[in-house]
């Protein structure tokens, strides 16, 4: 049996499965309706909030996750497999459950709030916390694979030329793993933007775009939710296509 046409056919089915609902959605909304949605302050505000909150989550994951991914890629230690498993936990548990778990640590009755007096739920910080929790595996795993692919002898060469281990990391390992880190960051940011379950429990307000769309759908039905959905899909698609193109080029 020839494999090529069969594989093409099966692959096409899967791509259609993704594309058809998106196109159906986009063409269900008239340009006028989409235009009106773009002018709507509440929707635009929620999209910017979503992009921003996910960006904070990604930045926090970069600062804390890159050292972790480097350690996981380079060192062998007791309990490493357990830590690697833990990193993947957010991917496998239902995100509403993740939201409830997070609420126990960051909620109004939590130790954190009792000690600091700071109330997190219902703030932009709460949104970022939810996004960080569910999307950090994308960045950590991608960066770890990136570091793993670098022969440790590059770092040894840098050290033999007088670099400190820190300098070898920043001048050799980090730039060499840049592609994996950038692509992991883009994936993490994207995953954060699309997060609903964990975010809705930690912060119904201020509303992120997915929460806003859900609210409109629930209160007013499909027709009212559709224009906002189209705008969100188009904005995120444009951003990611551009980011991917820039990331691949460098």
């Amino acid at each position, binding site marked *: 049996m020839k494999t090529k046409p069969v594989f093409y056919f099966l692959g096409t089915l899967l791509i259609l499965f993704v594309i058809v609902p998106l196109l159906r959605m986009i063409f269900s909304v008239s340009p006028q309706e989409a235009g009106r949605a773009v002018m709507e302050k509440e929707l635009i505000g929620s999209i910017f909030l979503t992009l921003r909150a996910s960006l904070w989550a990604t930045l926090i994951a970069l600062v804390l996750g890159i050292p972790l991914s480097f350690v996981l890629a380079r060192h062998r230690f007791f309990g490493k497999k357990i830590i690697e498993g833990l990193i993947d936990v957010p991917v496998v548990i239902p995100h509403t459950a993740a939201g409830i778990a997070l609420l126990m640590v960051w909620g109004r009755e939590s130790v954190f709030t009792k000690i600091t007096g700071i109330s997190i739920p219902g703030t932009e910080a709460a949104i970022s916390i939810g996004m960080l929790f569910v999307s950090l595996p994308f960045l950590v795993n991608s960066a770890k694979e990136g570091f793993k692919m670098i*022969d440790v*002898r*590059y770092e*040894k*060469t*840098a*050290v*033999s*030329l*007088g*670099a400190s281990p820190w*300098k070898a990391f920043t*001048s*050799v390992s980090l*730039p*060499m793993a*840049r592609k994996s880190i950038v692509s992991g960051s883009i994936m993490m940011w994207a995953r954060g933007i699309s997060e609903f379950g964990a975010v809705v429990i930690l912060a119904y307000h201020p509303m992120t775009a997915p929460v806003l769309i859900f609210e409109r759908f629930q209160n007013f039905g499909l027709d009212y939710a559709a224009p906002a959905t189209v705008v969100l899909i188009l904005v995120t698609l444009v951003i990611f296509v551009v980011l991917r193109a820039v990331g691949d080029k460098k």
Partner: protein
Amino acid sequence: MIKLDKVYKSFGDFQIKNLSLEVESGEYFVILGPSGAGKTLLLEMMAGLEVPDSGRIMGLEGKRVGLIYQDYMLFPHLNVFQNIAYGLIIRKEKKQKIKDQVEAVSEQLGIGGLLTREIHTLSGGEKQRAAIARAMVMQPEVYLLDEPTAALDLSTKSQIQRLILELHKKNNPTVIHVTHDFEEALAMGDRIGLLFSGSMVQDDTPERVFNNPVSKKAADFLGYKNVFSGEIKEYRIHINGIHIMTPEEYAEKATIAVRSNDIILSKNKLESSARNYFLGRVVRGIKRTNHVEVIVDIGVWLYVDITYQSYNEMHLQPGTPIWATFKTSSVKVFLH
């Protein structure tokens, strides 16, 4: 002088076993051994990149050391200039000085025109020159070379070998060069250390290492093609119905090795002092770069290296009857 005193290092299933070694200043020392013998680990310990579990490495403290790997390890995100300048930038040298030194070294190594090139556009030979330049610009007192020609084609390999020898002659640094290539070791080393499974089994001049292998394994590794095992009785080892005269009188189990260029082929029986002479037939001639390897069946297969001129003049064809002759003193015996 660099001195290793009972250096022990365990690395997974592998160990460097209480290795002691002395290398004089300015000496070109080759560590020869098969893959997995621990050569790279040993170099990395000397470079201070790995720490021995026990034992001491002396004479390298505070010395400038240049480490060069087989596969260059040029940083792919930097161009040739930035790679060569890397150590000088780390050392925070002035920009003009960096530029002058990088240009001077790269001119010397024949890569002056490649400084703005990206690493992936270079050939293997150019990459190794750039890697040598990157180490050389730091003016190391000790070079640690990890299989520096193993990834190169034959002609580039000899170019790089000549280049390294010229640099050694000119600046006289101490060089510790590890390789699995015994021809390279013979061509380059003042002294050779034979490393098997983390142990230095022999440490001597190239001539003595090659003429007096210490074991069957060493003989195999050093390119002895005629290695046979059997029982020695009355100065004869019995193998497959033939017997070969040996310098050893008696041994229940022994292995002998005869170098392929210690055997003479002749159409007629030679009247000579050599005590081993066998009439056999040519199996085939394998054409090598500088010689023909003739396989002669005398009951066992003997491998004999002869020149192209001899091969052609003797009209050796498969099946040609031929005499193989070698002296008893060229038979190296390893008792089990």
